[in-house]
């Protein structure tokens, strides 16, 4: 039923028209039917009455009796009109007045009756002063000169009957119309509901409520519309889902970027900013705020102004408070959206610190190498101008030898350190008894110590051993011992104590030197750091010893700490993770 909707409407209209026409016809038909029936009845009655009267024309007495009885019985006016038009009797007129009645020869029904046998008329009765329906019949064979019998009923009565019928009719028409309206209304409502449903569904989609289903019942046109709406909705849902997926992806990427990212509009207001940006600037909710309120630093805000003004990428490195360094990159965005630029903030504090350390390291190495190299160069130059048997010569040669040795030490240390730091040192672990190691190392340094009038004492618990590389462990101990001897005053004592802290093996090298100020204690393990540079000539060293100790200890899973007070000596403690001897017990 492709045209169900139009057909429905057409049928409804047709039914309405038909009902209206029918009721109009019915009203006019009833009118006539009532009249006809009345006329029929009158005719039969008049025929019957004529039979009664015909035999006795002219007998006034019985005629009058008959007329009046008939009138009473039949409920109609009965008149008998003589041949000359004189009224012989009339049921509705007192007998005494009959003689005074008007000649009825000219009455239309009488004229018609004389012409055709019967005559009928509806007119106003002058006698009774009311509308009457007349029927007249000629009596006897001689029609044109026969007396006439006339009956009349009040049209009022007839109309009353009619109106009763009409009321019923009107009621019926009204009921029919009401029914039509009702049925039509229901039909229209049934027709409208799917339309409204589809409209509602469409509006819901427009509002963004995509869960609403389009109706599945109703006329064909509506179903078609409904399925079109469903298709539209599903393709819309698909697009929305795709856009949402893409948005979520870019949002997730944006949010999780380690760099702080912000997007701003032409009024320098923040459109969006990611988590890193919010964290770096300490602004929980920057969206919509002026960027300047968040950055509040010309060095940071300036690049944004510049990038937007010149429409060119602008970069800056900005030092913030507390030695924090930020790198800022501002990129103008292509026109077409309200976003005009994106700013990317990166915390480069650690990088900058490493850079600074590297630069200082290079400077330190060059500085440390320059001293021996210039000594050697100077000595060599002097030697070329000196006779071989000059008493100065051996001293100069010795100077060259000593400085060359110092350079080699420095280079060895540097190589060691870089190897250790880059993790390229391979340890060959074995069980090392710390007491034996301490004895060997002390023996190596005994000569140096004696030349400075420093004595070395070893205090050790029995059988403290660690798992480690014997050579490297020896290097740790030697560097610590070497420092201790160097910093001890003449007549001083360096003590090596080997014991356990809890169950961890520990090795302490203690001196009674000048000590290390608290503020510098965590810096002494840095490369080339020397507490008192003015004295480094007195106690030559590479400045790398403790750095090497720290790294080697870390390789062995050990920890190096220092306890010291200015004027009261220093104690370096190496605490190992595990006792190797204990394992066997």
């Amino acid at each position, binding site marked *: 039923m492709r045209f169900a909707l139009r057909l429905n409407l057409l049928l409804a209209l047709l039914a309405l028209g038909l009902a209206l026409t029918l009721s109009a016809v019915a009203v006019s038909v009833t009118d006539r039917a009532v009249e006809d029936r009345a006329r029929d009845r009158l005719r039969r009655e008049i025929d019957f009455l004529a039979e009664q009267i015909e035999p006795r024309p002219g007998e006034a007495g019985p005629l009058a009796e008959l007329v009046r009885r008939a009138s009473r019985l039949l409920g109609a006016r009965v008149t008998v009109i003589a041949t000359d038009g004189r009224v012989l009797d009339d049921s509705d007129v007192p007998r005494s007045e009959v003689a005074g009645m008007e000649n009825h020869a000219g009455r239309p029904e009488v004229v018609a009756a004389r012409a055709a046998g019967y005559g009928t008329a509806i007119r106003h009765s002058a006698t009774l002063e009311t509308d009457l329906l007349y029927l007249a019949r000629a009596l006897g064979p001689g029609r044109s000169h026969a007396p006439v019998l006339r009956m009349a009923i009040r049209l009022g009565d007839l109309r009353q009957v009619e109106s009763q019928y009409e009321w019923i009719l009107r009621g019926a028409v009204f009921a029919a119309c009401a029914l039509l309206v009702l049925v039509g209304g229901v039909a229209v409502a049934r027709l409208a509901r799917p339309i409204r449903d589809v409209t509602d569904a469409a509006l819901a989609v427009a509002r963004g409520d995509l869960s609403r289903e389009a109706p599945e019942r109703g006329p064909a046109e509506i179903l078609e519309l409904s399925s079109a709406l469903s298709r539209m909705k599903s393709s819309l849902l698909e697009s929305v889902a795709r856009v949402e997926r893409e948005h979520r992806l870019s949002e997730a990427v944006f949010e999780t970027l380690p760099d702080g990212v912000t997007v701003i509009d032409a*009024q*320098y207001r923040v459109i969006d900013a990611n988590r890193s940006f919010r964290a770096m600037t300490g602004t929980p909710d920057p969206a919509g705020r*002026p960027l*300047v309120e968040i950055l*509040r*630093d*010309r060095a940071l805000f300036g690049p944004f102004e510049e990038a937007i003004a010149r429409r060119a990428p602008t970069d800056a490195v900005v030092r913030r*408070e507390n030695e924090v360094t930020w790198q800022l990159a501002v990129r103008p965005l292509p026109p077409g959206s309200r976003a005009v630029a994106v700013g990317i903030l990166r915390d480069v504090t650690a990088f900058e610190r490493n850079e600074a350390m590297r630069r200082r390291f290079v400077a330190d190495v060059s500085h440390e190498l320059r001293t021996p190299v210039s000594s050697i160069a100077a000595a060599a130059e002097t030697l070329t101008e000196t006779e071989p048997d000059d008493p100065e010569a051996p001293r100069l040669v010795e100077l060259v030898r000593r400085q060359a040795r110092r350079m080699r030490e420095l280079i060895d240390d540097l190589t060691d350190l870089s190897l250790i730091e880059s993790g390229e040192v391979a340890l060959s672990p074995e069980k090392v008894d710390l007491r034996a190691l301490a004895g060997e190392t002390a023996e190596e340094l005994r000569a140096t110590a004696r030349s400075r009038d420093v004595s070395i004492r070893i205090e050790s618990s029995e059988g403290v051993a660690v798992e480690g590389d014997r050579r490297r462990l020896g290097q740790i101990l030697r560097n610590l011992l070497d420092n201790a001897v160097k910093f001890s005053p003449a007549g001083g004592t360096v003590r090596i104590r080997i014991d356990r802290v809890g169950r961890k093996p520990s090795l302490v090298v203690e001196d009674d030197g000048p000590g290390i100020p608290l503020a510098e204690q965590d810096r002494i393990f840095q490369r080339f750091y020397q507490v008192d540079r003015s004295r480094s000539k007195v106690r030559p060293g590479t400045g790398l010893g403790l750095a090497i100790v720290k790294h080697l200890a870390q390789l062995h899973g050990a920890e190096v700490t220092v306890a010291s007070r200015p004027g009261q000596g220093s104690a370096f403690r190496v605490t190992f993770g595990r006792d190797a001897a204990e394992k066997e017990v």
Partner: protein
Amino acid sequence: MKEHFAERLEALRRRLILMGSEVEKQIRASIEALTEGSAENARAVIARDEDVDRLENQIEEEAIQLLALEQPVAIDLRFLVGVLKINNDLERIGDHAVNIAEGAERLVGRPPFQPAIGIRAMSEMVQVMLRQSLDAFIARDAALAQKVIEQDDVLDAKNEGVIRQLLTYMAETPALISHCLELISVSKNLERVGDLATNIAEDTIFIAEAKLVKHHGVELAR
């Protein structure tokens, strides 16, 4: 035209905020130069003062131009007048930073000295006041501005305490007189910075609430 005006007001506000942060940096750097005894940092502060002056001129020119051309009323008028006053206050704070930096330069190499602790406490307080007055201006926060105004008396008392202590030192140790005089000057400069931060706070209240607050929070009849 109207929108253009609003944009220019916003740009002016931006410049003033940046000027504020610049002056904050100057104060912080001058105090660092003093506490760390760094002549280099002190000279950097003195050199940067030109920048601050240039910023002040730009802001003043723009504000006057807007006043003259746009003939603003009500809040916009108050804002422009407030900007002019705050701009001026900030520039003078910059000058005090230079004074402190010059003192720091002269004190380089002197050993640390006990009354410096009182000055450090003052400088921290002044920086907080300046920060809060600028925060209040940015947020149009009259309550915060009022808080700044209330701190000024405490700062003044601290200043007097530091000066009294320094005078005692001078009396006891004539060798330290020149050192003490420098520190007295630093203390006075800090106290003036506090006053100017208070002015900024008062101007902020004027902008935000159309109330004239002068001389330590006494509200004048309009």
